[in-house]
């Protein structure tokens, strides 16, 4: 709640489906292609060319729709959205209008401690336009993006805080990455976010006039832009003025939104069914097939990690933030047979190293099975937890198997009581003064002895045995 006002927020996210070819022709979709390299007569809209739907794009749309709890329309319609712009090659964009492929879903996510559910009104397929770059008085156009498949996911006006909006965006990103239908890279434009924001007095059933914040390229900026916009609109209303319905852009440098175009300039898109494309008919079989291909989604997976693996809520959440990370964890745990320890190693050592070397989890030089073996070796008592850290660093550097490193470096834990007892005796003999001190009541010297023994054994002594034997020698 803001100064007695409530914000109402709805979001449209354009998800770029990462198909190998464009939505209506065989042109490639790589991000870094040379200018206009990924074009053909079809994607630049040459006279006489016709669109043919990419089956993969339809499958990806269905998968996403199912993951968002949507109904999948058996028969959806492609429509033309007509407007002029130099980067729109045909003078219309092929999109879906009154009969989109996915409708009526919901998505649930957490904002702080609260659980939030947002309605997904629709998710429809459409083609992207090209990209204009402005250089002085001139504009250059690159049509590589023209025809890239997009799925536009539209929510109801169900969110009320900037945090909810940002978290919604992150959740969608997480889901499409889980599904493998989009890389979720906001900077490269793989996801683009438009937010509709209005304010009204708390308790007022009527929606206020909304503004649309367009093309914000990070969820942190989504939060900031909405925050700014709410305050701005309340100021306008408080001054007794009217909020103007318009499209605004976010300036991340100035931390404010500014007018892009007002409603007076709004277009009449003259939507009508594209006569070049027959209605898109999807079979029950295809829908079932896509359903069967759905991976376990983040929330379900998190809950399973808590209930079946006994992980703390926080650990489960961190580990399921990315599908690759969750997979890494599960594969590690499968080998280590130790859920909690696997989680700990990944959340501390692995993630730290990844961050330091700016790597994605998939590029980790230590494979999950190797980490699992390392953890199993600790649990078996072959090495101590401390030695394990040394082994881990070596594994990270060389990618070698843990056992090979342990063997090579002679790091096997010493668990022979006789050997340990000998070291203990030596240390106690060499530190007669401290022994006397301990016996006179300075029991905190215990740690000093342990440290010395471990040092003498180059860390290889089994710490439990060291404890036991030392206890016996000092107190016995």
């Amino acid at each position: 709640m803001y100064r007695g006002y409530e914000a109402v927020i709805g979001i449209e996210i354009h998800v770029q489906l990462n198909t190998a070819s464009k939505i209506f022709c065989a042109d490639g979709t790589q991000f870094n292609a040379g200018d206009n390299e990924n074009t053909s007569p079809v994607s630049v809209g040459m006279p006489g060319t016709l669109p043919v739907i990419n089956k993969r794009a339809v499958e990806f749309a269905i998968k996403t729709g199912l993951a968002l709890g949507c109904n999948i329309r058996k028969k959806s319609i492609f429509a033309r959205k007509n407007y002029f712009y130099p980067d729109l090659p045909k003078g219309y964009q092929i999109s879906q209008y009154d009969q989109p492929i996915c409708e009526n879903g919901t998505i649930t996510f957490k904002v702080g401690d609260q659980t939030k559910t947002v309605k997904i009104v629709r998710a429809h397929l459409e083609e992207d336009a090209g990209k204009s770059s402005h250089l002085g008085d001139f504009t250059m156009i690159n049509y590589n993006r023209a025809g890239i498949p997009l799925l536009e996911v539209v929510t109801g006006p169900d969110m009320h805080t900037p945090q909810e909006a940002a978290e919604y965006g992150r959740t969608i990103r997480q889901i499409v990455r889980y599904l493998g239908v989009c890389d979720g890279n906001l900077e490269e434009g793989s996801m683009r976010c438009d937010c509709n924001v209005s304010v009204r007095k708390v308790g007022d059933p009527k929606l206020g006039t909304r503004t649309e914040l367009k093309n914000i390229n990070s969820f942190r900026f989504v939060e900031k832009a909405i925050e700014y916009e709410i305050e701005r609109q309340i100021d306008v209303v408080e001054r007794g003025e009217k909020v103007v319905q318009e499209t605004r852009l976010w300036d991340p440098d100035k931390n404010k939104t500014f007018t892009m175009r007002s409603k007076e300039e709004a277009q009449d898109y003259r939507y009508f069914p594209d006569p070049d494309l027959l209605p898109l008919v999807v079979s029950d079989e295809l829908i079932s097939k896509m359903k069967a291909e759905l991976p376990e989604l983040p929330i379900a997976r998190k809950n399973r990690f808590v209930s079946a693996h006994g992980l703390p809520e926080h650990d489960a959440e961190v580990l399921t933030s990315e599908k690759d990370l969750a997979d890494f964890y599960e594969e590690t745990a499968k080998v280590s047979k130790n859920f909690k320890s696997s989680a700990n190693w990944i959340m501390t050592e692995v993630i730290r190293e990844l961050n330091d070397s700016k790597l994605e989890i998939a590029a980790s030089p230590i494979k999950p099975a190797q980490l699992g073996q390392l953890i199993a070796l600790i649990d078996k008592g072959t090495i101590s937890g401390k030695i394990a850290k040394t082994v881990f660093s070596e594994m990270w550097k060389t990618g070698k198997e843990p056992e090979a490193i342990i063997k090579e470096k002679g790091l096997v834990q010493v668990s022979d009581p006789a050997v340990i007892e000998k070291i203990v005796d030596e240390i106690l003999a060499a530190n007669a003064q401290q022994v006397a001190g301990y016996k006179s009541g300075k029991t905190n010297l215990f740690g000093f002895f342990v440290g010395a023994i471990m040092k003498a054994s180059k860390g290889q002594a089994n710490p439990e045995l060291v404890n036991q034997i030392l206890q016996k020698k000092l107190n016995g």
Partner: protein
Amino acid sequence: MDLINASITEIADAVKLKKTSAKEVTTQFMKRAESLNPKLNAYTSLNSNALKEAEAIDARIAKGEDIGAMAGVPFGIKEMFCTKGIVTNAGSKILQNFVPPYDATVVARLKKAGIVITGKLNQDEFAMGSSNETSFYGVTKNPWNLECVPGGSSGGSAAAQAARLCAGTLGTDTGGSIRQPASFCGIVGVKPTYGRVSRYGIIAYASSLDQAGPMVSSVKDAALTLEVISGHDEMDSTTSQRKVPAYSKDLTANVKGMKIGLIREYMQGGLHPDVQKTVDQAISALKSQGAEFVEVSVPMTEFAVPVYYLVAASEASSNLARYDGVKYGYRAEFPNLSAVDLEEFYGKTRGEGFGKEVKRRIMLGTYCLSSGYYDAYYNKAGQVRRMIMNQYREAFQKCDVILSPVTTSPAFKIGERVSDPLTMYLNDIFTTSTNLAGLPGMSVPFGMSADGLPIGVQLTGAHFDEQRMLNVGYALEGASSVKGKAPSV
């Protein structure tokens, strides 16, 4: 051998059997085209590579390669079809220098069958017109009477074929643009079922109505050409997967026991007496061959013309949006381009690039699709269109093929109707409903007006039933008094 008046099959056979060469055939037709085209303005451009292409075919034949069913046949292509490396302007200024980097699927299929492209044929601008008077490249003359129009929009194709400036041509038909000029020029024109022939590479006018088809001298040539160009195309998802019948092989003039429908709503008079006479003669000719005539009713055809213009103009307004001077085609001159805003850029380019009739239809279509009018116009037109389709479906329960006039009158004089677009639009009254219903239709020359102008008869078939329609056409052709009659140019 009289190559100029030979059929497509005769030419192809002669070339394949080396009785003549593709080069010889092409030379003869190109010479004729060069000398007569200035009179007719049927070609907008002649293919300067035609002889080389013909030689290449001869070389392949010499090597014993199997050339297709149209080996060395000189073929003219309407400007509406993209032809790789050859200017394709759709009759418009806005595409005056456009050279496509690819062939329309139908052109590619004809080339594969062995044709030699003689040149590109004049047409109404973007196929919008019924008289060939809206072409930026000037009016085409009717070879039967140079003061008359050849019909539109495939008037260039019809005139070139009638005057034998090539051995076969391709046209497109959105509301009658193959059948009406075929009738005006005394040739055979076939508009196939929607989805029978690929639209890929055909410059779009009204996507849900456009179909390409042969405009040739005989029904047999039409059947053969249709066979070559038909079939599914993975570049056009509206094409049908149905197998293409061997139209030319299965062609038979036997109409005994066939039921031929006459549409009640079309028999209410108002026809030019010569047209009426021709239709009546066609009916008796078929009756005498054992066909049975039944009356059918397609009451909604009353609305065919307005519905056609709403649908066609709406789709056209969208299809023609791509001609904006940004990527290809005509761009207006701006002395100081950097000072021009986008709206001015589009406005001037499109204002100068499009002709009057095209602008009229873009405006009409934009209006029909705009918010607040969509339901009243485009949507309503779509509903009536479905009713027309259903009424035809019912009609074809009672008959095999429908016979009707093609137009209300024979070819009219150049300039006679230009100032009256509504009368011009009504010219399409007998042809448009076929496109709205997606049915195949054809015009077969059958009579002659008192003024010496050809008159065709229209046959309409059921969906994908081209064969029966062609068979009836073949029977009509056999009984026609004008068979083999050619204009002297």
